[in-house]
């Protein structure tokens, strides 16, 4: 089991002033750059600590939001490529369907891989639905654009005999010639995020690592099963290291301390979905059937987004008011003493059929730096050795 510490670097000081919407509509006057600077340095310190603790590092990006001030994922990747020596560096990921310059993505990933001496894990993501607004990228054909970008980026990183031509539907270049070439050959490992059995099956066919993010106890087994089906259809073995699961993790010396840390980090889950319905369902991003279902949901027309997490008994709970126990029940959170966390992880691991990576949200929301350091340290010393043999 490899463990990756992840944080969105939320700008939580602005949350109190904001109502139902934390994304896209939030004016940047609510962002005090001095406070933001402190948050960046604090987050980078916590990631750098992972190098000493035997944890790996994961970053991502979001835009125009108080839930995440990592708007350019390759910037923390670049800083950490230099500041760390051992940890692997996962970007999950780069929203390549929303990037208008795919060759630039190939250059950024290649350069990061070389500076880090081959420690980059290369995530390609479609991006959350609300990301099309700040990117102004057309949601109606995002998937086909995503795959063309994927094809072009990989060709650009693996072609070493001079410029090639690319005149596709979305990207046109006459002379693609990326320097440097990546440190890892033929290219850094590719990761995709998946949120449904359909997308997992496609990833399985290609043999990539999948990250399922907070998909929980109820939904995750079908997603992993679809991956295995896709892999099998191409004669691939779906080994444990192809599966990554993201959960919120709070460890403490007592149950109360672990729960308190998890509860603070869970403010991520309580705020991430605070977004208008028009941003949660941009036209064509979801299927026609899914959009029709959303239109019918109560409150859609008033702009109230749909949000719920599924408990094991099938009950749906609004994450905004959910407790730590409910998030643990939903398989979104592992929390408590090291013994409790190990037990919850083993149970979830068995339930979904195993996974080789834990994407550990060890910081988020209002948790302090000292608590974060303690959370990561306790996890690495008292949980990691006992789950390392899993996967």
């Amino acid at each position, binding site marked *: 089991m490899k463990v990756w510490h992840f944080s969105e670097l939320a700008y939580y000081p602005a949350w109190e002033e904001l109502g139902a919407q934390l994304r*896209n509509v939030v004016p940047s006057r609510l962002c005090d750059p001095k406070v933001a600077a402190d948050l960046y340095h604090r987050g980078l310190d916590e990631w750098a600590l992972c190098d000493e603790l035997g944890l790996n590092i994961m970053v991502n990006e979001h835009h125009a939001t108080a839930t995440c001030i990592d708007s350019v994922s390759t910037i923390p990747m670049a800083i950490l490529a230099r500041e760390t020596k051992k940890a692997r560096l996962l970007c999950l990921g780069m929203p390549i369907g929303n990037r208008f310059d795919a060759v630039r993505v190939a250059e950024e990933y290649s350069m990061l891989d070389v500076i880090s001496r081959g420690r980059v894990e290369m995530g390609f993501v479609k991006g959350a639905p609300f990301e099309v*607004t700040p990117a*102004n990228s*057309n*949601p*109606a*054909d995002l998937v086909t654009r995503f795959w063309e970008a994927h094809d072009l980026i990989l060709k650009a990183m693996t072609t070493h005999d001079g410029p090639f031509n690319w005149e596709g*539907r979305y990207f046109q270049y006459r002379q693609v010639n990326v320097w440097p070439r990546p440190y890892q050959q033929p290219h850094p490992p590719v990761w995709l995020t998946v949120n449904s059995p359909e997308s997992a099956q496609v990833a399985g066919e290609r043999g990539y690592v999948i990250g399922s993010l907070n998909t929980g106890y109820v939904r995750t087994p079908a997603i992993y099963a679809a991956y295995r089906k896709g892999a099998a259809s191409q004669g691939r073995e779906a080994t444990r290291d192809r599966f990554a699961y993201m959960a919120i993790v709070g460890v403490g010396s007592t149950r109360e301390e672990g729960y308190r840390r998890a509860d603070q980090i869970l403010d991520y889950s309580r705020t991430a979905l605070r977004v*208008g*319905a*028009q941003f949660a369902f*941009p*036209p*064509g991003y979801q299927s*026609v*059937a899914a*959009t*029709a*279902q959303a*239109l*019918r949901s109560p409150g*859609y*027309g*008033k*702009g109230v987004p749909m949000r719920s997490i599924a408990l094991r008994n099938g009950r749906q709970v609004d994450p905004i008011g959910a407790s730590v126990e409910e998030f643990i029940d939903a398989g979104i959170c592992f929390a408590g003493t090291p013994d409790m966390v190990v037990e919850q992880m083993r149970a979830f691991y068995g339930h979904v059929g195993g996974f080789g990576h834990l994407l550990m949200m060890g910081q988020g929301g209002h948790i302090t730096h000292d608590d974060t350091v303690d959370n990561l340290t306790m996890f690495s010393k008292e949980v990691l050795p006992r789950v390392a043999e899993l996967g």
Partner: protein
Amino acid sequence: METLDIKGFPVETHIAGSGPPLLYLHAEQYVEQVRPHLDALAKTWRVIAPRHPGYGAAAGAADLRSVDDLAYLYLDLLDELKLDDVVLVGASLGGWIALEMCVRNRARLSKLVLVSSVGVKFSGREERDFADLFYMSDVEAFPMLFADWQRHAPSYAAMSTGQLEELARERQMLAHYGWRPYLHNPGLKRWLHRVDLPTLVLWGEADGFAKPSYGQSLASALPNAELTVVREAGHYPEIEQSEAVIRAIDAFVQR
């Protein structure tokens, strides 16, 4: 609804009525709600109303990606049906398609009616000619789109799954054809002098999506156009004030 074969591409087309030919190009959404309007037009006209590719049951096509493509498709349709002296009516997105057709070839057309047409950029780079529908919740958007939205805007709870899926498809195609640049062709204004046939520009008095001042700019930019404002109508006068729209078209054509 019949399916026409236009140079190998199937186009679902509503054809009804008898009289002089009228090609009707529908707006970006609420296509089903325009049916009574088409029926009323069919009392005087032979109405030919194609559904844009991707709308309705027919599949779109990967190589039909822009309003330019739709303009060529419907010019082909006029050729295929050998229609002459056609009155071309375009509503909103359909008006933009109509403008692109006229810029290219108006040989088979006699008169043009633009109902709340989008397609041209008049304002500066930091202003919008059309409200950003993709940024607004329905409660904000409906009052911009309808003068009486409580009566005319869709009520999702009362709709069937099929109707909701149709709405979902309409939104998808609105993005497909109009996402960026948003509902306009930056180069179109340069060629509006070619739209030199007699043109009626109809605008809803209460249109908050594309304001009547935009309609005035459009009428002024066309060589042979006049503006008529429709009272108690928003962006879809063909839904809210069908009779007034038809009266205005009849008066314009008979003059």
